[in-house]
């Protein structure tokens, strides 16, 4: 499913919060499933997982259908690491760092392009009314002069 730029920024922000909380629990030794449950309480991004659904299934679903295509692989990597019993803390912290940098790049891009877009918008929407107020009262006379030639 395609997402607009603003939606993708919001999703990134929510995912970042989710990973921050997840990293907090996993780093002190909690299991990923328990940590996931706790993290969903403070985030609107994912609903509370079904008790019967395994962590692998949750991550598999997200890998296939998460709205941000570029971040689907993170769930795949998490699934692989989880199924092999590897340490998850560095991976989650790295995802969190990547997301934060990505968001920072988005902010920088917005700060770079917004003044230009705003300037164009001001020219397009506010200059014509000013010109209209100057020219309109004289239009009648201008037309008369033009028709004389």
């Amino acid at each position, binding site marked *: 499913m395609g997402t607009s730029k603003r939606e993708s920024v919001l999703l990134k922000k929510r995912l970042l919060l989710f990973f921050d*909380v997840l990293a907090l629990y996993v780093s002190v030794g909690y299991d990923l499933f328990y940590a996931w449950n706790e993290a969903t309480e403070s985030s609107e991004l994912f609903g509370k997982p079904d008790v019967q659904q395994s962590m692998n299934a949750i991550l598999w679903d997200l890998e296939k259908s998460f709205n941000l295509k570029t971040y689907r692989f993170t769930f795949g990597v998490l699934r692989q690491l989880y199924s092999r019993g590897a340490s998850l803390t560095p991976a989650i912290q790295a995802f969190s760092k990547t997301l934060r940098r990505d968001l920072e790049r988005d902010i920088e891009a917005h700060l770079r392009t917004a003044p230009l877009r705003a300037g164009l918008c001001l020219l397009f929407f*506010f200059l014509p009314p000013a010109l*209209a107020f100057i020219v309109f009262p004289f239009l009648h006379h201008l037309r008369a002069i033009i028709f004389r030639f």
Partner: protein
Amino acid sequence: MLPGWLSDWSVRALRSQDWLSIEFFRHEKQFLKRVSVWSTAISAGLSLMITGGFAGSFLVILVLPFLFFAVTACRYRILKNQVAHDFMAKLHAIKGLLDVGTPFPLAVKLISQESSSQATFLLNRIVRGFQSGKSLEANFKKLEDKSPGEWVYRSLILIEQASRKGLALSPLVDSLLQLLDVEFQAEKRLKRLESEIWIQAFAASVIPWILCFVCWTFQPEMMEQAMRSLSGKILLLFILFWEGIGIWVLRSVNRFY
């Protein structure tokens, strides 16, 4: 009574602007009283000047709410920034107390006893609820949509979760402070850009009307003749409509989240 969809929309819009804050209105009674007196006086003065009599009372009704809300929103924005700074300072102090082994609720209580500000009020409220037997989580949940900014709420949730699980709070608060500092700086840059663009937009939208006023002063007959015609009236309406669209487009250009 507003229709349901309109009321829902208004509440959503106000929440997204984050200036519907109970704490703000509770703490700023004096300021709001002053603003309402001044805005009434200024709008009455304006209407008297423009219409030359009290017949322009309708104008007061038009100008008053705009003036009131503009000043209130400005004040709230300034206060939000102050709370954010204050909150960061309090978190630094709490971290210091945690480092020497003070429990989190006691650290919050000690810090909140030392000063009286909006951030302290926020922290005090949490401690009061905690002492009355409610969980910290329940108290933090109450602050949703009322706390001064999403990132403050977010940091409170993280601290609460760690406190509830008995995790080490000092390193967490330390890393949170670093994260919040980065976010706060980014938010400040975005806000600065936003206000610069709005100031430009305000100047640009006022210029046509100033030009109209100048033309009217120097060529009153010609302007009157032009504006009385049907095409003049259509042009006026079109300019209002065009500037309205411009403001709407600028709003979306300006917004990051």
